[in-house]
């Protein structure tokens, strides 16, 4: 098991994310309009927005699970499409209850009818700290253990871009911090785009933070907190950034501004 070998092959394929003029609607109602942003390669980018603004739909659109609005562009920073280059981690662990932890980690290969690299699965279970639960089923695991398996499954896919939809929000504070650290460490060689409604999570993990607002987002600017993640969100030096975020979150653009 040589994880370093895996990581070097990834470096060649590292790619950022380019989103331009994104529009999201539901039932003929426009939720988000004119949103453009970049997620630079090998960095954590956080999309921060209040609940119900359409963050999950935005992520699913980027993942090509929802048809994209005409005129909007989603591409890699190399200008090519993202098919086959994205891994997706949702708020729920999405583990299949009839499979063991090991089988869940190897799900991608199983679904594509490929032979799964068992040594790699074992290695990832070790790195995510759940080697002892390799044969456990979903209903025998705690919430934290399940998200660890989900993280291992995400890493197993070897995709340069990882989309995360509030994957830690259902966990208790201690477990959440542990998993944030683990995920940050293990996803170092990937481009991560994480959606969250928690300003502290964004401050802790995000190299770049984008505030997503309902309605027009054309005037939108990224926020780059000082220092590098993992930050301590209670650090006094982050207070100004925190206030900027809170102000941006509570002041809508467009007609309401």
């Amino acid at each position: 098991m040589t994880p370093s070998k895996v990581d070097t092959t990834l470096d060649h394929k590292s790619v950022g994310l380019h989103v331009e003029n994104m529009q999201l609607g539901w039932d003929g109602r426009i939720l988000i309009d004119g949103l453009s942003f970049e997620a630079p390669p090998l960095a954590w980018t956080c999309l921060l927005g209040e609940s119900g603004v359409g963050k999950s739909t935005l992520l699913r659109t980027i993942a090509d699970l929802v048809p994209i609005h005409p005129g909007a562009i989603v591409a890699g920073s190399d200008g090519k499409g993202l098919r086959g280059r994205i891994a997706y981690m949702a708020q729920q662990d999405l583990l299949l209850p009839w499979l063991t932890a090991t089988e869940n980690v190897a799900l991608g290969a199983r679904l594509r009818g490929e032979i799964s690299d068992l040594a790699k699965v074992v290695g990832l279970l070790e790195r995510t700290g759940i080697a002892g639960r390799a044969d456990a089923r979903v209903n025998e695991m705690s919430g934290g253990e399940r998200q660890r398996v989900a993280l291992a499954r995400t890493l197993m896919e070897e995709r340069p871009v990882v989309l995360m939809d509030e994957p830690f929000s259902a966990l208790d504070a201690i477990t959440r911090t542990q998993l944030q650290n683990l995920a940050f460490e293990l996803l170092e060689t990937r481009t991560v785009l994480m959606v969250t409604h928690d300003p502290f999570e964004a401050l802790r993990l995000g190299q770049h933070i984008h505030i997503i607002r309902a309605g027009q987002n054309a005037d939108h600017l990224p926020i780059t907190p000082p220092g590098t993640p993992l930050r301590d969100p209670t650090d006094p030096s982050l207070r100004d950034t925190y206030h900027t975020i809170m102000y941006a979150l509570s002041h809508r653009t467009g007609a309401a501004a």
Partner: protein
Amino acid sequence: MKILRPLIVFLGLLIVWHLVVTTLDMPAFILPSPKSVILIAIERMDTLMGHAAVTLAEILLGLVFGTLFGVTSALVMAYFRPARSWLLPVLVISQAVPVFALAPVLVLWFGYGMAPKIAMATLIIYFPVTAAFYDGLRRTELGWVDLARTMGASKASILRKIRIPAALPAFASGLRVATAVAPIGAVVGEWVGASAGLGYYMLLMNGRVQTAAMFAALFVLAIMAVCIYFLVDLALRRLIAWQPEADPASFS
């Protein structure tokens, strides 16, 4: 204790039955005593077993065909939208017309042999299996499908490795109901016209006022039905052993 409990219930019922017969002084052609039923069951064991084998075969074949058609229909309805609008009315009609009313027609078409009984059992089993499995297939956790799609899974692979396993608990509920009602189809078929089977034998004994023999046949039928149910239930539990059981009685 767990195995003993049904036995105790069974013995208790026998005792109540015996007391009813002795205290009310029931004539044997209305309600024979448990003792006379047991005696006649032993005496005619060969005959009863011969008829039971026929009924058993009808029920089991009905289960196989009903499940097969049900699973196929559910898959077709779940995957081909045009087929859905055509198959749904068929499904409802198959249930709206009582099997009892269809029995004479089926006997007319398929004769007095096992075929119309199997057809009847199949009809009865078809609906619960189809409805439950179709429901299960439609209720796949959307996140699982999303995840599979980002992993590059084909539609066929999502069906085989996610939707079908996820629908198995629903399918199991349907099949349990189907198994419990399957004997009805076979017995009704035998009543309408047959030359063998427990239903046929019961009618025959009824006509000859051999009520004890009728009860003996009923007994064999009941034991058989219970055994089939428990075997199917056991098989289904193995199939979906991963599903956690939440006993509503265990929450306060």
